[in-house]
């Protein structure tokens, strides 16, 4: 009984039944670029009609050209036969398609290769997340411990690293960062002054722009903006550098040499940032105040008025607050950047992830530290 499948405008596939055998005659070009080629669904539908056949056989003599399109179709039929326990007549295929199909089906599908992704019950998931967070905290403390040991060895003069690496980082983290620190600090100072002037103008206290910008920059924004910029710029760079070294086994090569990667790689970066952050913060304070000065001058204050007011508002204690914070922020950026780099997975995607995590954790820990400092300095009446 000859019946072309429903919705089959093409002659590419004709299905006939001869007793228990269903014969598929394929004609024409079975190429990927052809549109409207029959799919396995059509065969499925035919098989579903009436009693299922015992055997699926093929006639490929009319096929003028084929590529993956034919093989995919045949593979689909093969899988269907396996599911429905039908016999797949391999010998009815022509040479080329038969060999390719044999190759594709020679290795049985690996079972259980993917880990099971069943959704665990809610409590189990909460528990797993808590355990993961605890493990993460343990990793951070372990790293901090190694850093502490390395720092102790540094003070005893026994740490093994290259001073040339320190100076290279000093240039890259310090000098090379000046342009972006200048731009952002200037704009932050500008913005603070503008925002402050809105309210101060109402009370006739525009002169207090100097107080506002001076105190805000020197106590908080200088250190914080430098920290955020450097976290994005340098923290991510450290994570990417160390992550790439991890992927290419350079860190393993250091370890087999008996060198501690923390001493050799992390210490130079920490020293560099420890030295550079306070300097960058001072510079950011200065540039930020200049930004405020520009706004003040544009609002008919004089230079002398601004500077005199500034000098009364900002004293050494306020400066020290900012500088002390900057030392801490520098260490935080270095440690978080290097930590994420050392935790990096084994692919290029993982290096990108490590860089992202370095920035996010760096900024988060800095803000937390800032809050702590606020409490401490408040208690000390600084």
């Amino acid at each position: 009984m000859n019946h072309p499948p429903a919705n089959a405008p093409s002659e590419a596939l004709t299905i006939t039944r001869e007793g228990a055998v269903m014969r598929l005659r394929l004609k024409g070009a079975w190429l990927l670029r052809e549109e409207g080629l029959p799919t396995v669904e059509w065969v499925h539908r035919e098989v579903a009609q009436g009693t299922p056949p015992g055997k699926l056989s093929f006639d490929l003599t009319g096929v003028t050209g084929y590529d993956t399109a034919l093989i995919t179709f045949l593979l689909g039929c093969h899988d269907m036969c396996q599911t429905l326990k039908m016999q797949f007549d391999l010998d009815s295929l022509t040479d080329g398609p038969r060999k390719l199909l044999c190759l594709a089906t020679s290795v049985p599908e690996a079972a259980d290769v993917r880990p099971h992704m069943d959704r665990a019950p809610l409590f189990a998931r909460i528990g797993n997340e808590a355990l993961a967070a605890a493990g993460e905290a343990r990793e951070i403390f372990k790293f901090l411990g190694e850093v502490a040991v390395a720092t102790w060895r540094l003070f005893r003069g026994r740490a093994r690293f290259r001073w040339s690496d320190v100076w290279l980082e000093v240039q890259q983290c310090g000098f090379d960062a000046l342009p972006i620190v200048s731009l952002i600090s200037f704009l932050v100072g500008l913005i603070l002054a503008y925002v402050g002037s809105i309210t101060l103008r109402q009370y006739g206290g525009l002169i207090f722009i100097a107080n506002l910008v001076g105190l805000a920059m020197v106590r908080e924004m200088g250190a914080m903006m430098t920290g955020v910029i450097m976290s994005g710029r340098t923290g991510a760079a450290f994570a990417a550098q160390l992550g790439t070294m991890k992927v290419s086994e350079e860190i393993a090569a250091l370890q087999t040499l008996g060198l501690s990667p923390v001493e050799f790689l992390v210490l130079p970066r920490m020293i560099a940032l420890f030295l550079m952050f306070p300097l960058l913060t001072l510079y950011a304070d200065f540039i930020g105040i200049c930004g405020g000065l520009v706004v003040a001058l544009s609002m008919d204050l004089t230079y002398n008025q601004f500077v005199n007011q500034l000098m009364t508002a900002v004293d050494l204690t306020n400066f020290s607050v900012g500088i002390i914070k900057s030392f801490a922020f520098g260490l935080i950026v270095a440690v978080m950047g290097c930590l994420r780099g050392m935790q990096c997975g084994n692919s290029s995607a993982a290096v990108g992830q490590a860089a992202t995590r370095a920035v996010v954790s760096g900024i988060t820990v800095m803000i937390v530290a800032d809050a702590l400092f606020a409490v401490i300095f408040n208690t000390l009446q600084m």
Partner: protein
Amino acid sequence: MNEAINPPPPHISVRDLTMAYGSYVVMRNLTFDIKHREIFVIMGGSGCGKSTLLRHLIGLLKPAAGTVYYDGEDFTDAEEEKKRLMLRKFGVMYQGGALWSSLTLAENVALPLEEFTDLPAATVKEIVSLKLALVGLRGFEEFYPAEISGGMCKRASLARAMALDPDILFFDEPSAGLDPVSARRLDELILQLRDSLGTTVVVVTHELASIFAIADRAIFLDVAQRTMGGLGDPREMRLNSPNENLRFFLNRGIKGTNLPLDAATGAPLAPAEHPAPGAGA
């Protein structure tokens, strides 16, 4: 006489080593010895844990169970300082070279010398030039790893591994990515190192030609059974091993063991290279 009563301990002894990532066991109960001046190959299919075993031997990973001994001394649980002294005797050539990318070739080779010896800078420079010349890289001292080819990186990495004239050299897939001529040169270099300097060599590889050319003894890591599948001379194991996976591996995936062999390397020929029937064995 003394040696007969107390034979010197093997260079490396592994007892009941079990390697695991978390709860997933890679290999269990590995027990073998590596003798002094021996070329020992660790072989197995892809993903069986060869490189993992190497990392356990050089102390990069801690075993889930079992111990590694060097000259009879416990390496796995040794103190930091003791371990550092033992590490000084290793040279490791990693799969991709693992040269430090921010250092020149000369600085790469010099670093072990600077860390472990008190030699003056001029002497270090001479030794570095010698080591690089030995691997055919004379003149490339000031190049960075990114500026040279992959094969040259591997050779530089070998120079670095040899910097301290180590007692043991570890090679992780040394001929991966090398053309056949370079791979053969590397085999010859390994044999030379053992013959001239008495270095013990441990090689992780799955290149049959190399295995048959250089191995004194080999261990086969059976990924199906997740333990050692064979230990001994690979030429014998190819014919006589009771482990079918091992024979299959050493016969290049062809069933049956009476295969024609390559006259030059002694390795079994692939089917395409078999002589035509009737042309003689």
